[in-house]
């Protein structure tokens, strides 16, 4: 194909550079801190209500692992079931193929309604449709805010988390929706009136899928606003784009995720709208149903025994809400449809190009504090995948100033006598000390002393004391 995978945004700088810009935006930091602090507390409470949360997590992990081990079998089963119920299944290797399929299915339609979907963002569907003269109307409120603001989403669940309500009023006003105040109720009403017109006029709807049940061919979408349900039921034709890994074996397996997802994502016991549909039903709902099964880097990810656990992700965004790095930098710094800790491990794998500098910077965008793993409802060991992908990035980069320094450090640590000589050499840093602190260091040390004093090396390392006193 040779086309770029749109899971990363064209022209995005590496994470440290993008983060610097975001950190300078004090309004953004305030908006993010308020939002993540609130949702963190609510999630902890919602999860704390369940005595068997740990068992649920382990069940979710086990089901997803089984799916990943037998993905071929479950997908074939899903295809057969969807087809038997009057749906049509399409297979897409990459973003370009998936976009072509959707565009072809749109036929003569010039406007389509969409329920928020990460898969269609991942393939850049809206842009691809626009290039062919088809306007995609986002119907999720936060997604609509992003779309009208000609902006990029910065959160998986709340794409407009970085905006406050007065910013939203301005976006709506500029788009001609004209709300008179920044009262959330008034803003929501303005969006509602706008969307109602679109639901009733569009012939085609595009959705994503949270899950698809292999044995019955049923597709499932969870949402909060009901706009998704309008998309899924009103238009004549429904096109669902779904990542390969979203399949679950049976309805019984679904039960586990219907508990894990809402509590992890919106901190609700149950999400307000769960829509399921199975093929087509004459006289009820869409007359045509198409399911596009998207690979776009997933089978490559599946081949990596450590990295593949990222495919267990159910897109709840709990990891974003607890991540201290995300909280300061926001989602757009990740330069990808998938921000935060999950984005830092999923994006580089979907891109599948170790020489892509922007994607390769993402696994380093973490202090490895482990808060993400603690909250993940399907127990993705994000810190382990981060260090695994760091090793991959280091290998791809080959020889660098850092790799030379690391090899030198390893050589020093491999021998106690070399290590002791290095300690003596390092104590030369005492020359930089004033008043018992080091406020400036040259070279790589400068990144440290830009904001922190450095410790003054001890006159007598511990081992010398030990030799004198206990040796």
């Amino acid at each position: 194909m040779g086309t770029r995978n749109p899971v990363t945004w064209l022209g995005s700088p590496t994470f440290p550079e993008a983060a610097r810009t975001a950190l300078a935006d004090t309004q953004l930091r305030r908006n993010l801190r308020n939002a993540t602090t609130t949702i963190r507390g609510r999630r902890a409470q919602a999860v704390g209500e369940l005595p068997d949360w740990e068992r649920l997590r382990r069940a979710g992990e086990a089901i997803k692992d089984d799916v990943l081990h037998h993905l071929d079998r479950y997908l074939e089963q899903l295809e057969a079931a969807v087809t038997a119920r009057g749906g049509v299944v399409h297979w897409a290797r990459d973003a370009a193929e998936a976009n072509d399929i959707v565009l072809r299915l749109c036929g003569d339609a010039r406007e389509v309604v969409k329920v928020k979907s990460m898969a269609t963002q991942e393939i850049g569907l809206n842009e691809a449709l626009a290039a062919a003269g088809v306007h995609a109307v986002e119907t999720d409120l936060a997604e609509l805010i992003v779309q009208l603001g000609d902006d990029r989403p910065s959160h998986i669940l709340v794409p407009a988390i970085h905006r406050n309500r007065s910013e939203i009023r301005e976006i709506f006003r500029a788009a001609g929706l004209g709300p008179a105040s920044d009262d959330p109720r008034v803003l929501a009403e303005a969006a509602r009136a706008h969307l109602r017109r679109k639901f009733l006029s569009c012939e085609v709807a595009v959705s994503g899928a949270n899950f698809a049940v292999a044995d019955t061919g049923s597709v499932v979408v969870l949402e909060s606003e009901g706009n998704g349900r309008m998309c899924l039921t009103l238009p004549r034709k429904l096109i669902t784009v779904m990542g390969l890994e979203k399949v679950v074996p049976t309805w019984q397996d679904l039960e586990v995720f219907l508990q894990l997802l809402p509590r992890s994502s919106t901190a609700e016991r149950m999400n307000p709208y769960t829509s399921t549909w199975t093929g087509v039903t004459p006289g009820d709902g869409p007359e045509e149903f198409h399911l596009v099964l998207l690979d776009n880097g997933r089978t490559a990810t599946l081949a990596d025994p450590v990295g593949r656990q990222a495919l267990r992700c159910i897109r709840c965004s709990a990891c974003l809400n607890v991540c201290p790095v995300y909280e300061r930098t926001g989602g757009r710094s990740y330069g990808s449809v998938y921000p935060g800790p999950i984005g830092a491990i999923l994006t580089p794998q979907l891109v599948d190009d170790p020489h892509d500098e922007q994607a390769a910077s993402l696994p380093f965008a973490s202090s490895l504090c482990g808060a993400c793993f603690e909250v993940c409802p399907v127990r993705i060991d994000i810190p382990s995948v981060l260090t695994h992908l760091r090793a991959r990035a280091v290998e791809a980069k080959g020889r660098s100033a850092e790799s030379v320094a690391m090899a030198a450090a390893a050589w020093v640590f491999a021998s106690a006598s070399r290590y002791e000589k290095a300690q003596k050499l390092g104590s030369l840093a005492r020359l930089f000390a004033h008043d018992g602190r080091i406020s400036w260091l040259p070279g790589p040390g400068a990144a440290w002393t830009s904001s922190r004093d450095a410790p003054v090396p001890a006159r007598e390392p511990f081992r010398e004391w030990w030799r004198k006193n206990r040796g």
Partner: protein
Amino acid sequence: MEKVALFATCLTDTLYPATARATVRLLERLGLTVEFPLDQTCCGQMHFNTGYRDHAADLAVRFASMFSGYDAVVVPSGSCAGMVRHVQPDLGAAPPPTYELSEFLVDVLQVTDVGAYFPHRVTYHPTCHSLRMLGVGDKPLALLRQVRGLELVELPQADSCCGFGGTFAVKNADTSTAMLADKMRCVLDTGAEVLTAGDNSCLMHIGGGLSRLRTGVRPVHLAEVLASTEEEPWAPATR
């Protein structure tokens, strides 16, 4: 518990020897004979976390052979103990039972009152690897509550990362600094004179920031707090 070895960690050995001396003093006061294998260097954590797995594996194997034959290895660092216990086995090493200091005291020796005296207002930062990788929970707090003269004040947002993260602090210096700023604000809000933790790496980071701002709050490792007694009270290290 016959043979207990101290793994001082390269950072503490070189930059914070007072912590290692305090650990020895504390363990000896509790009746143990401590050994310090002089061939020890580093557990390989920096290499592993930065993506240099092969170097880390060599150091892991070296560590295991260095400490084989000991009943327990005690480490005054949650992150290095976490590296030894949870990562080294994946790198092909078989280290002996290894404990972070507070775990060793509470779980193995089963003491919370170590006879310490430390008449200062103290706040405790639970470092991420102690908290999440090792799951030390409230053990350090249980120890601190028994210290005579010590006034323990709760640190707001205690479980959020200070922003150190090893090479993260320099690779993503701006983000690390933003995290540090929030952590420092919380520390200053407590009005504590002393910030304590089980990891000199995190204390080096937070302490470096507190020193830059001339706040006067002192970072003191948990081992030094617990080693302090009325007869031999803690004093700032002379460098």
